Protein backbone atom coordinates (compact mmCIF):
# COMPACT_ATOMS: atom_id res chain seq x y z
CA UNK A 1 0.00 0.00 0.00
CA UNK A 2 1.32 3.43 -0.87
CA UNK A 3 1.78 5.93 1.94
CA UNK A 4 -0.84 8.18 0.40
CA UNK A 5 -3.56 5.57 0.33
CA UNK A 6 -2.57 4.49 3.83
CA UNK A 7 -3.17 8.03 4.98
CA UNK A 8 -6.49 8.09 3.22
CA UNK A 9 -7.52 4.84 4.83
CA UNK A 10 -6.57 6.16 8.24
CA UNK A 11 -8.51 9.32 7.60
CA UNK A 12 -11.53 7.30 6.52
CA UNK A 13 -11.28 5.22 9.67
CA UNK A 14 -11.18 8.32 11.86
CA UNK A 15 -14.13 9.78 10.03
CA UNK A 16 -16.06 6.54 10.37
CA UNK A 17 -15.61 6.38 14.14
CA UNK A 18 -16.43 10.06 14.44
CA UNK A 19 -19.61 9.52 12.52
CA UNK A 20 -20.49 6.47 14.61
CA UNK A 21 -19.92 8.26 17.93
CA UNK A 22 -23.29 9.71 18.70
CA UNK A 23 -24.44 12.41 21.02
CA UNK A 24 -27.13 10.87 23.16
CA UNK A 25 -29.40 12.70 25.54
CA UNK A 26 -31.24 10.92 28.33
CA UNK A 27 -33.85 12.32 30.66
CA UNK A 28 -33.92 11.00 34.21
CA UNK A 29 -37.11 12.00 35.99
CA UNK A 30 -36.50 11.69 39.70
CA UNK A 31 -37.89 12.80 43.05
CA UNK A 32 -36.87 15.61 45.34
CA UNK A 33 -33.73 14.73 47.32
CA UNK A 34 -31.73 12.91 44.62
CA UNK A 35 -30.36 16.06 42.96
CA UNK A 36 -26.84 15.69 44.32
CA UNK A 37 -26.73 11.92 43.86
CA UNK A 38 -27.52 12.04 40.16
CA UNK A 39 -25.28 15.00 39.43
CA UNK A 40 -22.40 12.80 40.63
CA UNK A 41 -23.66 9.65 39.01
CA UNK A 42 -24.36 11.19 35.59
CA UNK A 43 -20.78 12.40 35.24
CA UNK A 44 -19.41 8.97 36.10
CA UNK A 45 -21.85 7.15 33.85
CA UNK A 46 -21.06 9.45 30.90
CA UNK A 47 -17.38 8.60 31.28
CA UNK A 48 -18.10 4.88 31.52
CA UNK A 49 -20.38 4.90 28.50
CA UNK A 50 -17.97 6.88 26.36
CA UNK A 51 -15.14 4.51 27.21
CA UNK A 52 -17.33 1.55 26.34
CA UNK A 53 -19.04 2.71 23.15
CA UNK A 54 -17.48 6.04 22.19
CA UNK A 55 -20.88 7.72 22.39
CA UNK A 56 -21.25 10.91 24.34
CA UNK A 57 -24.20 10.78 26.66
CA UNK A 58 -25.69 13.77 28.45
CA UNK A 59 -28.22 13.02 31.16
CA UNK A 60 -30.72 15.68 32.02
CA UNK A 61 -32.42 15.59 35.39
CA UNK A 62 -35.82 16.64 36.56
CA UNK A 63 -36.77 16.75 40.24
CA UNK A 64 -39.93 17.31 42.24
CA UNK A 65 -42.41 15.56 44.51
CA UNK A 66 -42.45 11.89 43.54
CA UNK A 67 -46.15 11.78 42.67
CA UNK A 68 -45.95 14.97 40.64
CA UNK A 69 -43.01 13.61 38.67
CA UNK A 70 -44.87 10.39 37.85
CA UNK A 71 -47.81 12.43 36.66
CA UNK A 72 -45.59 14.55 34.41
CA UNK A 73 -44.32 11.38 32.73
CA UNK A 74 -47.86 10.03 32.37
CA UNK A 75 -48.85 13.34 30.80
CA UNK A 76 -46.12 13.01 28.21
CA UNK A 77 -42.79 14.15 29.67
CA UNK A 78 -40.38 12.04 27.59
CA UNK A 79 -38.42 10.42 30.42
CA UNK A 80 -36.07 7.60 29.46
CA UNK A 81 -35.74 6.42 33.03
CA UNK A 82 -37.60 7.22 36.21
CA UNK A 83 -36.01 7.00 39.63
CA UNK A 84 -38.80 7.68 42.11
CA UNK A 85 -39.30 7.60 45.85
CA UNK A 86 -41.44 4.49 45.98
CA UNK A 87 -42.84 1.67 43.89
CA UNK A 88 -46.41 2.97 44.01
CA UNK A 89 -45.49 6.02 41.96
CA UNK A 90 -43.80 3.85 39.34
CA UNK A 91 -46.84 1.56 39.33
CA UNK A 92 -48.88 4.60 38.31
CA UNK A 93 -47.06 4.60 34.96
CA UNK A 94 -48.50 1.19 34.26
CA UNK A 95 -51.92 1.85 35.78
CA UNK A 96 -52.58 5.13 34.03
CA UNK A 97 -50.75 5.00 30.74
CA UNK A 98 -49.26 1.51 30.20
CA UNK A 99 -45.85 3.10 29.67
CA UNK A 100 -44.15 0.14 31.35
CA UNK A 101 -45.05 -3.53 31.77
CA UNK A 102 -46.90 -4.62 34.89
CA UNK A 103 -43.99 -6.69 36.18
CA UNK A 104 -41.47 -3.85 35.89
CA UNK A 105 -40.26 -4.30 39.44
CA UNK A 106 -38.94 -7.80 38.72
CA UNK A 107 -36.65 -6.61 35.92
CA UNK A 108 -33.84 -5.42 38.15
CA UNK A 109 -32.51 -7.05 41.28
CA UNK A 110 -33.46 -5.99 44.82
CA UNK A 111 -37.00 -5.01 43.81
CA UNK A 112 -35.56 -2.52 41.32
CA UNK A 113 -34.22 -0.49 44.22
CA UNK A 114 -30.45 -0.14 43.72
CA UNK A 115 -30.03 1.81 46.96
CA UNK A 116 -32.16 2.17 50.05
CA UNK A 117 -32.73 4.72 52.70
CA UNK A 118 -34.72 5.12 55.85
CA UNK A 119 -36.52 7.74 57.87
CA UNK A 120 -34.74 9.53 60.70
CA UNK A 121 -35.37 12.65 62.80
CA UNK A 122 -33.53 15.91 62.35
CA UNK A 123 -33.66 18.06 65.49
CA UNK A 124 -32.15 21.38 66.49
CA UNK A 125 -28.75 21.40 68.21
CA UNK A 126 -28.83 20.09 71.74
CA UNK A 127 -32.22 18.45 71.09
CA UNK A 128 -34.10 20.90 73.36
CA UNK A 129 -37.33 18.85 73.25
CA UNK A 130 -35.47 15.63 74.12
CA UNK A 131 -36.83 13.76 71.14
CA UNK A 132 -35.57 10.17 71.15
CA UNK A 133 -38.21 8.03 69.50
CA UNK A 134 -41.53 8.07 67.69
CA UNK A 135 -43.62 8.41 70.87
CA UNK A 136 -41.91 11.73 71.64
CA UNK A 137 -43.48 13.15 68.50
CA UNK A 138 -47.06 12.93 69.75
CA UNK A 139 -46.39 14.78 73.00
CA UNK A 140 -48.30 18.03 73.32
CA UNK A 141 -46.23 21.06 72.38
CA UNK A 142 -43.85 19.22 70.07
CA UNK A 143 -44.00 20.66 66.58
CA UNK A 144 -43.30 18.12 63.81
CA UNK A 145 -42.47 18.94 60.19
CA UNK A 146 -43.27 16.41 57.46
CA UNK A 147 -44.50 16.83 53.89
CA UNK A 148 -48.00 15.81 52.85
CA UNK A 149 -48.30 12.02 52.41
CA UNK A 150 -50.82 12.56 49.63
CA UNK A 151 -48.20 14.21 47.43
CA UNK A 152 -44.81 13.24 48.82
CA UNK A 153 -43.21 9.82 48.66
CA UNK A 154 -41.00 10.52 51.65
CA UNK A 155 -43.98 11.53 53.75
CA UNK A 156 -45.66 8.20 53.06
CA UNK A 157 -42.61 6.39 54.42
CA UNK A 158 -42.74 8.70 57.48
CA UNK A 159 -46.37 7.91 58.08
CA UNK A 160 -45.96 4.17 57.67
CA UNK A 161 -42.91 4.06 59.95
CA UNK A 162 -44.85 5.87 62.69
CA UNK A 163 -47.80 3.53 62.17
CA UNK A 164 -45.74 0.36 62.48
CA UNK A 165 -43.95 1.66 65.57
CA UNK A 166 -47.27 2.40 67.25
CA UNK A 167 -48.78 -0.91 66.20
CA UNK A 168 -45.90 -2.84 67.71
CA UNK A 169 -45.77 -0.78 70.87
CA UNK A 170 -49.47 -0.27 71.53
CA UNK A 171 -50.63 -3.55 70.09
CA UNK A 172 -53.44 -2.74 67.68
CA UNK A 173 -54.31 -1.07 64.39
CA UNK A 174 -56.89 1.14 66.09
CA UNK A 175 -54.31 2.43 68.57
CA UNK A 176 -51.86 2.98 65.72
CA UNK A 177 -54.42 5.09 63.90
CA UNK A 178 -55.00 7.18 67.00
CA UNK A 179 -51.23 7.58 67.42
CA UNK A 180 -50.69 8.76 63.85
CA UNK A 181 -53.67 11.12 64.15
CA UNK A 182 -52.07 12.68 67.23
CA UNK A 183 -48.77 12.96 65.40
CA UNK A 184 -50.34 14.86 62.50
CA UNK A 185 -52.09 17.18 64.97
CA UNK A 186 -48.59 18.34 65.86
CA UNK A 187 -47.74 19.25 62.25
CA UNK A 188 -48.06 23.00 61.61
CA UNK A 189 -46.99 23.00 57.95
CA UNK A 190 -47.54 20.35 55.29
CA UNK A 191 -45.37 21.03 52.27
CA UNK A 192 -45.95 19.06 49.10
CA UNK A 193 -42.42 17.63 48.83
CA UNK A 194 -39.45 16.65 51.00
CA UNK A 195 -37.26 19.56 49.90
CA UNK A 196 -40.02 22.01 50.80
CA UNK A 197 -40.23 20.59 54.31
CA UNK A 198 -36.48 20.78 54.74
CA UNK A 199 -36.63 24.47 53.77
CA UNK A 200 -39.45 25.09 56.24
CA UNK A 201 -37.52 23.42 59.05
CA UNK A 202 -34.03 24.69 58.25
CA UNK A 203 -34.55 28.15 56.76
CA UNK A 204 -37.84 29.25 58.33
CA UNK A 205 -36.93 27.62 61.64
CA UNK A 206 -40.40 26.19 62.05
CA UNK A 207 -40.83 23.03 64.13
CA UNK A 208 -38.83 21.02 66.67
CA UNK A 209 -38.24 17.96 64.54
CA UNK A 210 -38.15 17.15 60.84
CA UNK A 211 -39.09 13.67 59.69
CA UNK A 212 -36.66 13.22 56.87
CA UNK A 213 -35.03 10.85 54.49
CA UNK A 214 -31.76 9.75 56.04
CA UNK A 215 -29.80 11.16 53.10
CA UNK A 216 -31.69 14.46 53.28
CA UNK A 217 -30.93 14.73 57.00
CA UNK A 218 -27.22 14.07 56.42
CA UNK A 219 -27.20 16.63 53.66
CA UNK A 220 -28.87 19.26 55.85
CA UNK A 221 -26.29 18.70 58.58
CA UNK A 222 -23.46 18.86 56.07
CA UNK A 223 -24.83 21.95 54.37
CA UNK A 224 -25.93 24.00 57.36
CA UNK A 225 -23.48 22.81 59.95
CA UNK A 226 -23.38 20.28 62.75
CA UNK A 227 -23.52 23.23 65.15
CA UNK A 228 -27.15 23.76 64.20
CA UNK A 229 -28.73 20.34 63.74
CA UNK A 230 -28.46 16.80 65.04
CA UNK A 231 -29.70 13.53 63.67
CA UNK A 232 -31.76 11.35 65.99
CA UNK A 233 -32.28 7.73 65.02
CA UNK A 234 -35.49 6.14 66.30
CA UNK A 235 -35.58 2.60 67.69
CA UNK A 236 -37.46 1.33 64.64
CA UNK A 237 -37.77 2.64 61.13
CA UNK A 238 -38.81 1.58 57.68
CA UNK A 239 -36.60 0.28 54.91
CA UNK A 240 -37.36 2.80 52.18
CA UNK A 241 -36.76 1.43 48.72
CA UNK A 242 -36.64 4.14 46.07
CA UNK A 243 -37.26 2.32 42.83
CA UNK A 244 -36.02 2.83 39.29
CA UNK A 245 -37.36 1.76 35.92
CA UNK A 246 -36.93 2.13 32.23
CA UNK A 247 -39.85 3.92 30.57
CA UNK A 248 -40.31 1.36 27.80
CA UNK A 249 -42.58 3.30 25.50
CA UNK A 250 -40.38 6.39 25.53
CA UNK A 251 -37.04 4.65 25.00
CA UNK A 252 -38.48 2.62 22.11
CA UNK A 253 -39.67 5.78 20.45
CA UNK A 254 -36.40 7.59 21.01
CA UNK A 255 -34.15 4.62 20.27
CA UNK A 256 -32.34 4.95 23.60
CA UNK A 257 -33.22 1.58 25.07
CA UNK A 258 -29.67 0.19 25.30
CA UNK A 259 -28.11 3.22 26.93
CA UNK A 260 -31.03 3.80 29.29
CA UNK A 261 -30.85 0.18 30.40
CA UNK A 262 -27.11 0.48 30.96
CA UNK A 263 -27.73 3.66 32.95
CA UNK A 264 -29.87 1.76 35.44
CA UNK A 265 -27.69 -1.39 35.47
CA UNK A 266 -24.60 0.66 36.24
CA UNK A 267 -26.27 1.90 39.44
CA UNK A 268 -25.67 -1.63 40.76
CA UNK A 269 -21.97 -1.61 39.83
CA UNK A 270 -19.32 -1.05 42.50
CA UNK A 271 -18.78 2.46 41.27
CA UNK A 272 -22.51 3.25 41.19
CA UNK A 273 -22.95 1.86 44.69
CA UNK A 274 -20.04 3.93 45.98
CA UNK A 275 -21.61 7.09 44.62
CA UNK A 276 -24.90 6.22 46.29
CA UNK A 277 -23.11 5.65 49.60
CA UNK A 278 -21.18 8.89 49.31
CA UNK A 279 -24.52 10.66 48.86
CA UNK A 280 -25.82 8.96 52.01
CA UNK A 281 -27.96 6.33 50.35
CA UNK A 282 -27.49 2.85 51.81
CA UNK A 283 -25.83 0.66 49.18
CA UNK A 284 -27.11 -2.85 48.34
CA UNK A 285 -23.69 -4.22 47.44
CA UNK A 286 -22.30 -5.86 50.57
CA UNK A 287 -18.64 -4.95 50.10
CA UNK A 288 -19.53 -1.31 49.53
CA UNK A 289 -21.97 -1.43 52.43
CA UNK A 290 -19.25 -2.79 54.71
CA UNK A 291 -16.89 -0.05 53.62
CA UNK A 292 -19.38 2.67 54.53
CA UNK A 293 -20.87 0.89 57.57
CA UNK A 294 -19.60 3.48 60.01
CA UNK A 295 -21.45 6.22 58.17
CA UNK A 296 -24.92 4.77 58.65
CA UNK A 297 -26.42 4.48 62.13
CA UNK A 298 -27.63 1.03 63.12
CA UNK A 299 -31.40 0.85 63.33
CA UNK A 300 -33.95 -1.93 63.20
CA UNK A 301 -35.64 -1.73 59.81
CA UNK A 302 -38.83 -3.36 58.62
CA UNK A 303 -40.05 -3.66 55.04
CA UNK A 304 -43.34 -2.44 53.68
CA UNK A 305 -44.03 -5.88 52.22
CA UNK A 306 -43.81 -7.51 55.63
CA UNK A 307 -45.70 -4.87 57.60
CA UNK A 308 -48.27 -3.58 55.15
CA UNK A 309 -48.51 -6.23 52.42
CA UNK A 310 -46.84 -4.11 49.75
CA UNK A 311 -47.37 -0.69 48.27
CA UNK A 312 -50.56 -1.32 46.35
CA UNK A 313 -52.34 -2.34 49.53
CA UNK A 314 -50.80 0.37 51.73
CA UNK A 315 -51.62 3.02 49.16
CA UNK A 316 -55.24 1.97 48.98
CA UNK A 317 -55.81 1.63 52.72
CA UNK A 318 -53.96 4.71 53.87
CA UNK A 319 -53.45 7.30 51.17
CA UNK A 320 -56.25 6.97 48.62
CA UNK A 321 -59.08 9.51 48.78
CA UNK A 322 -61.23 8.65 51.77
CA UNK A 323 -58.43 6.44 53.16
CA UNK A 324 -57.15 6.52 56.71
CA UNK A 325 -54.99 9.61 56.20
CA UNK A 326 -58.02 11.55 54.97
CA UNK A 327 -60.06 10.27 57.89
CA UNK A 328 -57.58 11.32 60.56
CA UNK A 329 -56.98 14.76 59.08
CA UNK A 330 -60.63 15.65 58.61
CA UNK A 331 -61.53 14.82 62.18
Amino acid at each position, binding site marked *: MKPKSLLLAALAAVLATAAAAKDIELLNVSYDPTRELYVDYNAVFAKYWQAKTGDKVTVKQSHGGSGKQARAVIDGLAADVITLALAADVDALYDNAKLIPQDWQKRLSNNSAPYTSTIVFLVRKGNPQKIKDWDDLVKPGVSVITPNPK*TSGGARWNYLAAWEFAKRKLGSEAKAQEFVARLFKNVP*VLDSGARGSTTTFVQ*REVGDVLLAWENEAFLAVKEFGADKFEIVVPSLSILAEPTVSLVDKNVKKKGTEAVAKAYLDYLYSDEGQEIAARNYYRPRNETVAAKYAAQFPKVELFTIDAAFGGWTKAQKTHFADGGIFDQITTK
Partner: protein
Amino acid sequence: MPFRPRRSVLPGFGLSLGFTLAYLGLVILLPLAAVFVKTSGMSWPDFWAAVSSPRVIASYQLTFGASFLAALFNVPCGVMLAWVLVRYEFPGRKLVDALVDLPFALPTAVAGIAFTAIYAKNGWFGQWLEPQGIKVAYTALGVWLVLTFIGLPFVVRTVQPILEELEPELEEAAATLGATRGQTFRRVILPALRPAIITGFALAFARAIGEYGSVVFIAGNRPMHTEITPLLIITKLEQYDYKGATALASVLLVGSFGLLFFIQLSQRRARRAHA
Protein backbone atom coordinates in the same frame (compact mmCIF):
# COMPACT_ATOMS: atom_id res chain seq x y z
CA MET B 1 -87.45 40.26 11.76
CA PRO B 2 -83.98 38.79 11.47
CA PHE B 3 -81.28 40.44 13.50
CA ARG B 4 -79.44 43.01 11.45
CA PRO B 5 -76.88 45.42 12.86
CA ARG B 6 -77.66 49.06 12.46
CA ARG B 7 -75.58 50.62 9.72
CA SER B 8 -72.60 52.13 11.41
CA VAL B 9 -70.31 54.73 9.94
CA LEU B 10 -67.43 52.44 10.88
CA PRO B 11 -67.06 49.49 8.53
CA GLY B 12 -65.95 46.01 9.50
CA PHE B 13 -68.56 45.03 12.09
CA GLY B 14 -68.93 41.50 10.73
CA LEU B 15 -65.23 40.87 10.59
CA SER B 16 -64.45 42.26 14.02
CA LEU B 17 -67.32 40.44 15.71
CA GLY B 18 -66.27 37.23 14.02
CA PHE B 19 -62.74 37.74 15.22
CA THR B 20 -63.92 38.53 18.75
CA LEU B 21 -66.02 35.39 18.97
CA ALA B 22 -63.29 33.19 17.52
CA TYR B 23 -60.74 34.70 19.89
CA LEU B 24 -62.93 34.32 22.97
CA GLY B 25 -63.76 30.79 21.92
CA LEU B 26 -60.15 29.77 21.44
CA VAL B 27 -58.62 31.51 24.43
CA ILE B 28 -61.36 31.25 27.04
CA LEU B 29 -64.19 28.92 26.16
CA LEU B 30 -62.27 25.98 24.70
CA PRO B 31 -60.07 25.28 27.74
CA LEU B 32 -63.03 25.81 30.06
CA ALA B 33 -65.14 23.45 27.99
CA ALA B 34 -62.43 20.83 28.42
CA VAL B 35 -62.90 21.09 32.19
CA PHE B 36 -66.59 20.34 31.90
CA VAL B 37 -66.10 17.58 29.36
CA LYS B 38 -63.65 15.80 31.70
CA THR B 39 -66.03 16.27 34.61
CA SER B 40 -68.97 14.94 32.64
CA GLY B 41 -67.33 11.51 32.68
CA MET B 42 -68.33 11.27 36.34
CA SER B 43 -71.61 10.03 37.68
CA TRP B 44 -73.63 12.39 39.88
CA PRO B 45 -72.91 10.55 43.15
CA ASP B 46 -69.17 10.51 42.33
CA PHE B 47 -69.23 14.18 41.46
CA TRP B 48 -71.11 15.03 44.61
CA ALA B 49 -68.74 12.98 46.76
CA ALA B 50 -65.74 14.71 45.17
CA VAL B 51 -67.01 18.25 45.68
CA SER B 52 -68.66 17.93 49.08
CA SER B 53 -66.27 16.01 51.34
CA PRO B 54 -65.60 17.85 54.62
CA ARG B 55 -62.04 18.63 53.61
CA VAL B 56 -63.20 20.19 50.36
CA ILE B 57 -65.93 22.20 52.09
CA ALA B 58 -63.36 23.56 54.54
CA SER B 59 -61.20 24.60 51.59
CA TYR B 60 -64.13 26.46 49.97
CA GLN B 61 -64.68 28.32 53.21
CA LEU B 62 -61.06 29.40 53.33
CA THR B 63 -60.76 30.18 49.62
CA PHE B 64 -63.98 32.16 49.28
CA GLY B 65 -63.83 33.62 52.80
CA ALA B 66 -60.24 34.85 52.67
CA SER B 67 -60.72 36.10 49.09
CA PHE B 68 -63.84 38.02 50.08
CA LEU B 69 -62.21 39.60 53.14
CA ALA B 70 -59.07 40.45 51.18
CA ALA B 71 -61.09 42.15 48.42
CA LEU B 72 -63.19 43.94 51.03
CA PHE B 73 -60.10 45.21 52.82
CA ASN B 74 -58.70 46.43 49.53
CA VAL B 75 -61.71 48.66 48.91
CA PRO B 76 -60.98 51.42 51.49
CA CYS B 77 -57.21 51.00 51.12
CA GLY B 78 -57.34 51.00 47.33
CA VAL B 79 -59.65 54.01 47.17
CA MET B 80 -57.39 55.90 49.53
CA LEU B 81 -54.33 55.05 47.46
CA ALA B 82 -56.07 56.11 44.26
CA TRP B 83 -57.19 59.33 45.97
CA VAL B 84 -53.68 60.18 47.06
CA LEU B 85 -52.28 59.43 43.63
CA VAL B 86 -54.87 61.52 41.79
CA ARG B 87 -55.42 64.47 44.11
CA TYR B 88 -52.02 65.27 45.50
CA GLU B 89 -48.71 66.23 43.98
CA PHE B 90 -45.73 64.96 45.91
CA PRO B 91 -42.22 63.89 45.08
CA GLY B 92 -42.05 60.25 44.11
CA ARG B 93 -45.68 60.06 43.03
CA LYS B 94 -44.77 58.40 39.74
CA LEU B 95 -42.78 55.83 41.66
CA VAL B 96 -45.66 55.00 43.98
CA ASP B 97 -47.93 54.82 40.94
CA ALA B 98 -45.64 52.25 39.35
CA LEU B 99 -45.31 50.29 42.61
CA VAL B 100 -49.05 49.70 42.63
CA ASP B 101 -48.76 47.55 39.52
CA LEU B 102 -46.02 45.37 40.91
CA PRO B 103 -48.34 42.64 42.19
CA PHE B 104 -49.52 42.25 38.57
CA ALA B 105 -46.03 41.69 37.28
CA LEU B 106 -44.34 39.76 40.06
CA PRO B 107 -44.56 35.97 39.85
CA THR B 108 -46.89 35.25 42.72
CA ALA B 109 -44.63 32.50 44.05
CA VAL B 110 -42.01 35.15 44.70
CA ALA B 111 -44.53 37.15 46.70
CA GLY B 112 -45.50 34.04 48.66
CA ILE B 113 -41.92 33.17 49.53
CA ALA B 114 -41.11 36.77 50.47
CA PHE B 115 -44.15 37.08 52.73
CA THR B 116 -43.36 33.74 54.35
CA ALA B 117 -39.76 34.74 54.98
CA ILE B 118 -40.85 38.03 56.58
CA TYR B 119 -43.64 36.65 58.71
CA ALA B 120 -42.12 33.32 59.75
CA LYS B 121 -40.99 33.05 63.35
CA ASN B 122 -37.46 34.18 62.48
CA GLY B 123 -38.47 36.83 59.91
CA TRP B 124 -38.37 40.62 60.19
CA PHE B 125 -41.97 40.97 61.35
CA GLY B 126 -42.55 37.45 62.58
CA GLN B 127 -39.98 37.73 65.35
CA TRP B 128 -41.96 40.61 66.86
CA LEU B 129 -45.45 39.36 66.12
CA GLU B 130 -45.15 35.75 67.28
CA PRO B 131 -44.25 36.62 70.89
CA GLN B 132 -47.45 38.74 70.94
CA GLY B 133 -49.38 35.63 69.97
CA ILE B 134 -50.01 36.83 66.44
CA LYS B 135 -49.16 34.12 63.97
CA VAL B 136 -49.25 35.12 60.34
CA ALA B 137 -47.20 32.59 58.39
CA TYR B 138 -48.88 29.18 58.14
CA THR B 139 -52.30 30.46 59.20
CA ALA B 140 -55.44 31.75 57.49
CA LEU B 141 -54.24 35.25 58.34
CA GLY B 142 -51.25 34.71 56.07
CA VAL B 143 -53.53 33.53 53.29
CA TRP B 144 -55.59 36.68 53.64
CA LEU B 145 -52.45 38.80 53.62
CA VAL B 146 -51.09 37.55 50.30
CA LEU B 147 -54.53 37.70 48.74
CA THR B 148 -54.72 41.35 49.80
CA PHE B 149 -51.37 41.92 48.15
CA ILE B 150 -52.36 40.43 44.80
CA GLY B 151 -55.79 42.13 44.81
CA LEU B 152 -54.73 45.70 45.56
CA PRO B 153 -53.95 46.92 42.01
CA PHE B 154 -57.38 45.87 40.79
CA VAL B 155 -59.16 48.32 43.07
CA VAL B 156 -56.67 51.15 42.57
CA ARG B 157 -56.60 50.82 38.81
CA THR B 158 -60.38 50.78 38.39
CA VAL B 159 -61.04 53.68 40.77
CA GLN B 160 -58.17 55.89 39.62
CA PRO B 161 -59.47 56.92 36.15
CA ILE B 162 -62.91 57.76 37.57
CA LEU B 163 -61.35 59.91 40.25
CA GLU B 164 -59.26 61.67 37.63
CA GLU B 165 -62.42 62.69 35.79
CA LEU B 166 -64.15 63.78 38.95
CA GLU B 167 -63.43 67.48 39.15
CA PRO B 168 -62.53 69.11 42.46
CA GLU B 169 -65.04 71.82 41.57
CA LEU B 170 -67.82 69.36 42.42
CA GLU B 171 -66.56 69.11 45.97
CA GLU B 172 -66.09 72.86 46.17
CA ALA B 173 -69.65 73.36 44.97
CA ALA B 174 -70.91 70.95 47.61
CA ALA B 175 -68.95 72.84 50.24
CA THR B 176 -70.38 76.22 49.17
CA LEU B 177 -73.84 74.71 49.40
CA GLY B 178 -73.15 73.94 53.02
CA ALA B 179 -72.29 70.24 52.92
CA THR B 180 -69.95 68.97 55.57
CA ARG B 181 -66.88 67.01 54.49
CA GLY B 182 -68.58 63.79 55.43
CA GLN B 183 -71.69 64.68 53.43
CA THR B 184 -69.59 65.65 50.42
CA PHE B 185 -67.86 62.31 50.55
CA ARG B 186 -71.00 60.25 51.02
CA ARG B 187 -73.36 62.15 48.72
CA VAL B 188 -71.06 63.43 45.99
CA ILE B 189 -67.90 61.39 45.68
CA LEU B 190 -68.97 57.93 46.74
CA PRO B 191 -71.95 57.61 44.35
CA ALA B 192 -69.72 58.54 41.43
CA LEU B 193 -67.10 56.00 42.48
CA ARG B 194 -69.44 53.18 43.42
CA PRO B 195 -69.51 51.33 40.05
CA ALA B 196 -65.73 51.45 39.81
CA ILE B 197 -65.35 50.27 43.40
CA ILE B 198 -67.69 47.36 42.81
CA THR B 199 -65.85 46.38 39.66
CA GLY B 200 -62.50 46.62 41.40
CA PHE B 201 -63.81 44.58 44.32
CA ALA B 202 -65.19 41.91 41.98
CA LEU B 203 -61.94 41.65 40.04
CA ALA B 204 -59.85 41.41 43.19
CA PHE B 205 -62.23 38.82 44.62
CA ALA B 206 -62.24 36.66 41.50
CA ARG B 207 -58.50 36.87 41.13
CA ALA B 208 -58.01 35.79 44.75
CA ILE B 209 -60.23 32.73 44.35
CA GLY B 210 -57.97 31.37 41.65
CA GLU B 211 -54.71 32.32 43.33
CA TYR B 212 -52.35 29.41 43.96
CA GLY B 213 -48.68 30.31 43.65
CA SER B 214 -48.34 32.70 46.56
CA VAL B 215 -50.77 31.04 48.93
CA VAL B 216 -49.22 27.58 49.06
CA PHE B 217 -46.01 28.96 50.47
CA ILE B 218 -47.54 30.85 53.35
CA ALA B 219 -50.59 28.72 54.07
CA GLY B 220 -49.01 25.72 55.75
CA ASN B 221 -51.49 23.58 53.80
CA ARG B 222 -53.00 21.72 56.74
CA PRO B 223 -56.16 19.81 55.77
CA MET B 224 -59.31 21.39 57.23
CA HIS B 225 -57.40 24.50 58.34
CA THR B 226 -55.22 26.18 55.79
CA GLU B 227 -55.81 24.29 52.58
CA ILE B 228 -57.16 26.30 49.65
CA THR B 229 -59.26 24.73 46.92
CA PRO B 230 -56.70 25.28 44.11
CA LEU B 231 -54.21 23.28 46.21
CA LEU B 232 -56.72 20.45 46.55
CA ILE B 233 -57.05 20.45 42.77
CA ILE B 234 -53.28 20.04 42.43
CA THR B 235 -53.28 17.38 45.14
CA LYS B 236 -55.94 15.42 43.28
CA LEU B 237 -53.96 15.69 40.06
CA GLU B 238 -50.91 14.34 41.82
CA GLN B 239 -52.95 11.33 42.80
CA TYR B 240 -53.92 10.78 39.16
CA ASP B 241 -57.51 11.71 39.99
CA TYR B 242 -58.12 13.87 36.92
CA LYS B 243 -61.88 13.68 37.20
CA GLY B 244 -61.92 14.69 40.85
CA ALA B 245 -59.64 17.61 40.04
CA THR B 246 -61.82 18.84 37.20
CA ALA B 247 -64.91 18.43 39.37
CA LEU B 248 -63.39 20.84 41.92
CA ALA B 249 -62.26 23.13 39.13
CA SER B 250 -65.78 23.28 37.76
CA VAL B 251 -67.12 24.25 41.17
CA LEU B 252 -64.59 27.09 41.38
CA LEU B 253 -65.44 28.13 37.84
CA VAL B 254 -69.17 28.17 38.39
CA GLY B 255 -68.68 29.93 41.74
CA SER B 256 -66.47 32.66 40.31
CA PHE B 257 -68.62 33.14 37.24
CA GLY B 258 -71.78 33.29 39.34
CA LEU B 259 -70.24 35.91 41.59
CA LEU B 260 -68.99 38.06 38.73
CA PHE B 261 -72.30 37.79 36.95
CA PHE B 262 -74.26 38.67 40.07
CA ILE B 263 -72.06 41.67 40.74
CA GLN B 264 -72.41 42.88 37.14
CA LEU B 265 -76.15 42.52 37.39
CA SER B 266 -76.54 44.31 40.69
CA GLN B 267 -74.24 47.05 39.48
CA ARG B 268 -76.38 47.63 36.41
CA ARG B 269 -79.48 47.73 38.58
CA ALA B 270 -77.84 50.19 40.95
CA ARG B 271 -76.82 52.40 38.07
CA ARG B 272 -80.32 52.36 36.65
CA ALA B 273 -81.81 53.24 40.03
CA HIS B 274 -79.30 56.02 40.39
CA ALA B 275 -80.03 57.56 36.97
